[in-house]
């Protein structure tokens, strides 16, 4: 009963703090509004996207300039409506970002807290593995794995990214846990016989969650970036899957003068990509500030 009340209070306080942070920071307010607008646009736009948009080829209507043939931003090189392609691509980016961020956050919270809590040889061994993996060139390893797979489905890509990109987050959670483990409340819980998993998830986790929230947002944005970059180089999603990286290949396929004069080929998806990645990171920062008790009290 009492814990439930506390949780409600926390939720309400979080929303109040969140608005207060947004009021203080005009830029964050603008980004969050843009991000929400983009989300709504994608969600509503979903209903107009034909299911074959990735694989269709309508050569007669391909590469139309904006404002022609009933297409506001023209058509892509496969003849699909540009805006609808962009919506489908942005949706895939968001799915990939969330998918990878969820996998990595679950791995890092569970593993990082256990490593930090128990210490000893578990800590020594896992830190050696993590340090080793962190200096490896992840983007090159991913490029090799992706290129050998000859084009991935979204879910395989999420799985591979999630299972390879966790070390930095695990290390972060471990550091956070280490700073909590020696506090009095943990000692008190240990002495009173609370099992370790309860100490971890009801004691330590709420205290380190603000930073985990912003790390989640950062991972989300980074994953979108990695997928877009590698798909752009040709080592990512398989042909026929809509992706902002795939759309941006127009940049490498055309000459500089074409890119300069035909801005509509690359500018819209670049803007969407920027709003998406920057917006998510800034949203994460605001959420961290809003949920960090120590900062909001002062």
């Amino acid at each position: 009963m009492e814990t439930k009340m506390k949780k409600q209070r926390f939720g309400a306080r979080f929303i109040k703090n969140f608005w207060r942070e947004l009021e203080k920071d005009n830029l964050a307010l603008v980004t969050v509004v843009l991000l929400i607008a983009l989300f709504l646009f994608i969600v509503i736009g979903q209903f107009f996207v034909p299911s074959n948009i990735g694989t269709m080829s309508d050569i007669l209507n391909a590469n139309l300039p904006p404002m022609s043939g009933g297409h506001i931003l023209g058509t892509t090189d496969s003849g699909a409506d540009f805006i609808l392609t962009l919506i489908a691509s942005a949706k895939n980016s968001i799915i990939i970002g969330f998918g990878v961020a969820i996998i990595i956050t679950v791995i890092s919270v569970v593993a990082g807290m256990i490593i930090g809590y128990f210490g000893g040889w578990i800590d020594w061994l896992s830190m050696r593995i993590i340090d080793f993996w962190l200096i490896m060139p992840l983007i090159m390893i991913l490029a090799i794995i992706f290129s050998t797979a000859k084009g991935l489905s979204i879910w395989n890509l999420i799985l591979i990214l999630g299972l390879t990109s966790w070390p930095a987050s695990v290390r972060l959670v471990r550091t956070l846990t280490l700073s909590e483990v020696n506090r009095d409340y943990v000692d008190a819980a240990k002495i009173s016989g609370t099992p370790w998993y309860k100490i971890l998830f009801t004691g330590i986790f709420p205290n380190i969650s603000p930073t985990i929230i912003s790390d989640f947002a950062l991972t989300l944005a980074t994953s979108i970036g990695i997928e877009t970059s590698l798909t752009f180089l040709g080592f990512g999603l398989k042909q026929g899957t809509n992706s902002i990286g795939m759309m941006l290949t127009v940049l490498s396929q055309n000459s500089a003068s074409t890119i300069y004069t035909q801005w509509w080929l690359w500018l819209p998806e670049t803007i969407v990509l920027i709003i998406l990645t920057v917006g998510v990171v800034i949203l994460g920062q605001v959420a961290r500030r809003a949920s960090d008790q120590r900062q909001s009290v002062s």
Partner: protein
Amino acid sequence: MWRTILRRVLIMIPQLFLVSILIFMLAQLMPGDPFYGNLNPNSDPATIARMRHAAGLDQPLYQQYIHWIDRVFHGDLGTSYAVNKGWTVTRIIASRLWPTISMGIIAAILTYVFAISEALLSARHENKTIDRILMVWNTITSAVPSFVFYFLMMILFVYLIPIFPASGTGIDDSQSFTTSFFSNLRYAFLPAFTIALFSTNSIFQYLRSNLLDQQAQDYVRTARAKGVTIKDVFRKHILRNAFLPIASGIGYSITGVLGGAMFAETIFGYPGIGALFVQALTSRDYTVITAVMLLQGFLALLGGLLSDVISAWVDPRIRVK
């Protein structure tokens, strides 16, 4: 000090071993074998089996690994069969190495110059407009995939304001070394400048919060109370203390050079190791891929070693441990 370095070098041996296993496993992942593309499709299966046997491809994995590592130690990395057909991989890498090194060094220097000046500006004017702008700038450059910026810079400085050459390295073996060197600098500058401009975030954030931490320390207040100008406190105390942790990052910055060069070199048409890697992946030239990965793995370990040595050198507290 020397004992610290020696111990750190000894740690590198198992690490090198691990890297080689990792790369060998990645190489196994790639479809096809060294005869890929060289075989006559009409060869009879027995001939193919004989060739595979001669190359040791029918042996168990651990034996193949030992053979492979043995050849690597003797400097035999195999022959390319797509990027520069018939060339040995060592020759290809040697021809591509200098452009990447020159670009990497300029990029590293500029990154530190940009990041340090941004952080100093930010910390001196905390919460003022310039600080806000720099924070937002670094958030944007770190969140958005950098290849987008590379394109914008290329359109801007190669097409709209054509002050930089479009593609190539400017290296000409028929010219004298100095001519070749300076002409290469002209080609290397734009990609290096672009990489540096958009990768300041981690050093900037770290140095900025270090500077702010140091500014709030008691010794700064004491010095200010004694009448020392804020400029002098900055120069003599704050900078020195805040820079210590940054110095150790220099080694680690080597780690990411090739990964970043992949995009910069491909987009700016600057044929170094990064572009070679992309070319090799696209044409499935596995001997070249494996060799580049080995080089990168070695560089990464070297960077880690350098970082640890630098931090032990500048901060005696680490040595005691």
